[in-house]
């Protein structure tokens, strides 16, 4: 069991002031082993907040992140034998497009692609690969998405399956959903290849 926190698009202090209190109460150190953040933090303070939650942290550069943070454009992390790709998503054109995301996934050669930018949670499977967008943890303003709902994702990687917990704050009420995925196949079978 490996717990991975997938979180991003804070936009503090550009567009908002803090992670919602309701979420802060849930985000306590101890359980979380790895953090994969889609970026747009945007400053050092927020980066430091992440360090209070876990020690293994991966953050990629969003279009508003402070240059001084020296964040990479993308990242590939292997967790429990699964290859994760991490991009912010503002350079996946068009934003949120499944095909374009698919190209990125293939380019990085990963099984699960984590992306953000749209400030909207999404999770889908395509040809055995998984695509997760944790949304904006602060529910920050977006010129692209209306009615942004604060959200983040906690992934529990188990032997046979991956349980994805989606936390949302709808009208101040906490909503938790569970999604089940099977572990992506790393080697593709040649059955369909004719």
């Amino acid at each position, binding site marked *: 069991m490996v717990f991975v926190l997938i979180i991003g698009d804070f936009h*503090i*202090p*550009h*567009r*908002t*002031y*803090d992670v919602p209190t309701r979420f802060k109460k849930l985000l306590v150190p101890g359980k979380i082993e790895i953090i994969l953040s889609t970026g747009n933090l945007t*400053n*050092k*303070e927020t980066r430091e907040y992440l360090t209070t939650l876990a020690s293994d942290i991966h953050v990629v550069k969003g*279009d*508003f992140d402070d240059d*001084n943070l020296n964040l990479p454009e993308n990242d590939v992390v292997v967790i429990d034998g699964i290859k994760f790709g991490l991009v912010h998503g*503002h*350079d996946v*054109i*068009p*934003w*949120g*497009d*499944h*095909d374009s995301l*698919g*190209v990125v996934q*293939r*380019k990085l*050669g990963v099984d699960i692609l984590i992306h953000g930018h*749209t400030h*909207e949670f*999404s999770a889908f499977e395509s*040809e055995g690969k998984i695509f997760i967008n944790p949304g904006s943890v602060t529910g920050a*303003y977006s*010129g*692209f*998405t*209306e009615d942004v709902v604060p959200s983040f994702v906690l992934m529990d990687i188990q032997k046979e399956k991956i349980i994805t917990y989606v936390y949302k704050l709808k009208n101040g009420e906490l909503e938790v959903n569970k999604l089940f995925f099977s572990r992506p196949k790393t080697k*593709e079978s040649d059955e*369909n*290849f*004719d």
Partner: protein
Amino acid sequence: MSSKGSDLTKRKESVLTPRIEQETLLQELKDKIQRSAFDMRKFLEDEQTILVLIKTTEMISELRTSALSPKNYFELYSFLLNELRNVESYLDEQVKTGLSAQELYKVVQFTGQVIPRLYLLITAGSVLINTEEVPIKDILQDLNKMCRGIQHPTRGIFLRYYLTQMVKDKLPDITTQNSEMHGTVEDSINFIISNFIEMNKLWIRMQHQTPFGNLSEIGKKYVHTMLGKERTELGMLVGTNLSRLAQLEGVTVEIYSQNVLPLILHQIIDCNDKIAQEYLFVVMIQAFPDEFHLETLETLLKSLEELNPNVDIKEILQELMQRLVIYFKTNRAAENQEHKIFTTFSDSISRISQKKVLKQTDLLIILRCLLQIGFSLNLNRIDYVDYVFQSAFRLLNNEIIKQDDSNVVTQMIQEVIQSYNNVIVLIEIESFPHLTNLLPLAEQRKIANNLIENVLKSQTIIEEIEKLQRFFNLIQILLNHPINQNDLQFDSDFQKEQSALCKVIHFFYSDDIEKYFLIFQLLIKELNGTGKVRMKNYIFPLIFSGLKLAQKMRENERNKSEFSISFNQLFDSISTILENLINFFPEVAFKLFLQTAQAANKCRLEKVAYEMMLKAITIYGDVFSLRETQFKMLFSIISTLFTLNYIGNEYFSFLAVQCAIHSKKLVQPIHQAKAICCCSRFFYLQDSLIPTNSLENSQNQKRSIQFHDDKKLVGCLSKAIRIASSSIEFPVSLESLFEILDVCLIFFETQKTNINIEYINTLIELIIQVKEKNQSQPQVLFPQNSLVFINQMIRKFIKKKKGEKKEIYLEINFQKLKKTFN
């Protein structure tokens, strides 16, 4: 040595001897007393009263000395006191068994020397009181009168102190029987006050004695100072009268205020002695209950103002006010009283400060005490706080506060902030910003940061424009204090401070559009002129505040709620701010113009969205086209344009063409190819091809106007292919070609463009050619991840042959691709 000692004891001149001699002398006298006491006790056991008295006289004689310092005299006195108490008990018993107290009283007056005579008289008087044969009042008056015989300060004080100690528990009070013999509490009051007055006079005279021998001026001064402390401590003896007075049950608040207090104050003021006034005033405050002080507050304070100018009034006031603060914690003042108490204090302080006797720091300390009073009376009275701040401000005369004073003022302000802990309340204190403006820079910043923290913690939203203006007045310093090199460091306090300020801006909004617009204008006014360094931070929350307002306006419009602000007003303001930013921070302005375009689009303002895009493109053209990061900037423009689903075809196609033109000018071919390929998608936008497959949001992203320009579409794709195949190095060229093929297939699937079977197959042939041309390179140089990527793409394509639209793929030659790359 001993002879010298005895010489000294017999000498009546008031000459103080050096300290060591003092200690020796003291010891000698004590020994003498001890020896006499030894004998006395023997006679006591044998009940030989006369001899007891004689021995007692001997002991008391030692108190005739002038040679001891006050402290040493006190020790001698205390030593003797024990013996005298024994004598008193003995005489008391004797009287019970027949000895006549009245006769005793008369007889002891025949003692030779005056000191022993008076001590014995007091002792006898004490015994006489117990018999109740004579009115206590008469005895007390007689003793009082007799004590006047000793005018030597030290001896006189101790004599009277002995008097108080002896009659202490025998004074009439309302709790004791009220007979003719016994007397009333008035008798006690009169006696104590009279004694007090006499002791005070003696004490004051003591301080002005200069019983030195032949010493130089410096010598005299030094000794005077050293002894001064001892003499001052003797004030305690004088003060015990007041304590005893306060203990009388019969001293009610009425009697206190009408009879007792006037007399005490009269003596204190009249004596005009600094040390006495300071000491006794405080003792009086400490001895009597706080209710009494409240009742007589005006009188007390007025007399404070009449004290000797050298007196430290501050100490006295502090004592009084601090006591009352504690008192009010458990005893609420009556509502009508509350205000009167505060004004009594404030008026007095006002008068005191006008007299200009106190130092500024002391007055500030007193104002702080007044603040505490205000809090303890009624926390809801902000006007009390305002009064104190105003007074402090006037006192400081508009000058920057110096170090010592700034501590007091800062403490006052911190206490206020903590007591209310609510920014909405704090901003109502009118004189708050005036006062903080006088503090040193560092203090002002601390306070301002404190206030911001308060808003963040309490998550208080400020939506009234007057309140917001006041808030900004209070934190002005953060917007304009000088910035030094250290501040510019990444992690400095300044950066944290500015970050907090940015956060707090998100609490300034309203659901009421008109109010929100006013807030936005206020934000512009306050933040816009703060200079380059600050604006770099503020610009984001400022602009997003405006964009959020636009969002709200759109929401209201949809709900058919009316408002009087026009979208153009708003977007004009935003645009102006960004214009002014271009020269300083072009990249930031660029990003924010793109954001504004998106916001305008959501509001269905196609012209505004178009203009914002143009501005962004202009900046790109002027500033970025020569930089390394240019391709990122262009991709930002392209990706933003995709989301503008409410602008008409004319505007849209113009912008799309601009993007395509700039794409061709990118420095690196690989970026050129990617960008132009992206641009091709501009030229076919239909409902089903909305550039987002997000199910939840697709309603909102639906393009309202259909757009299709086949010529440009094909033109872009062909150009991309040309660049990829001829200008990009192998094998990256292959990756680019596959990405282009991917896009081509999207168009192919629609079956509505000129991207048809021939086009696709031609492209596939091209890809194979490119590969074979470079095939001479050994396989090992073909990077693994490239190969994996390409094969995955081929897999994806082949899957389409089994998918929904498998018919159209029948003649596409994916197999050939597969063979080539396997």
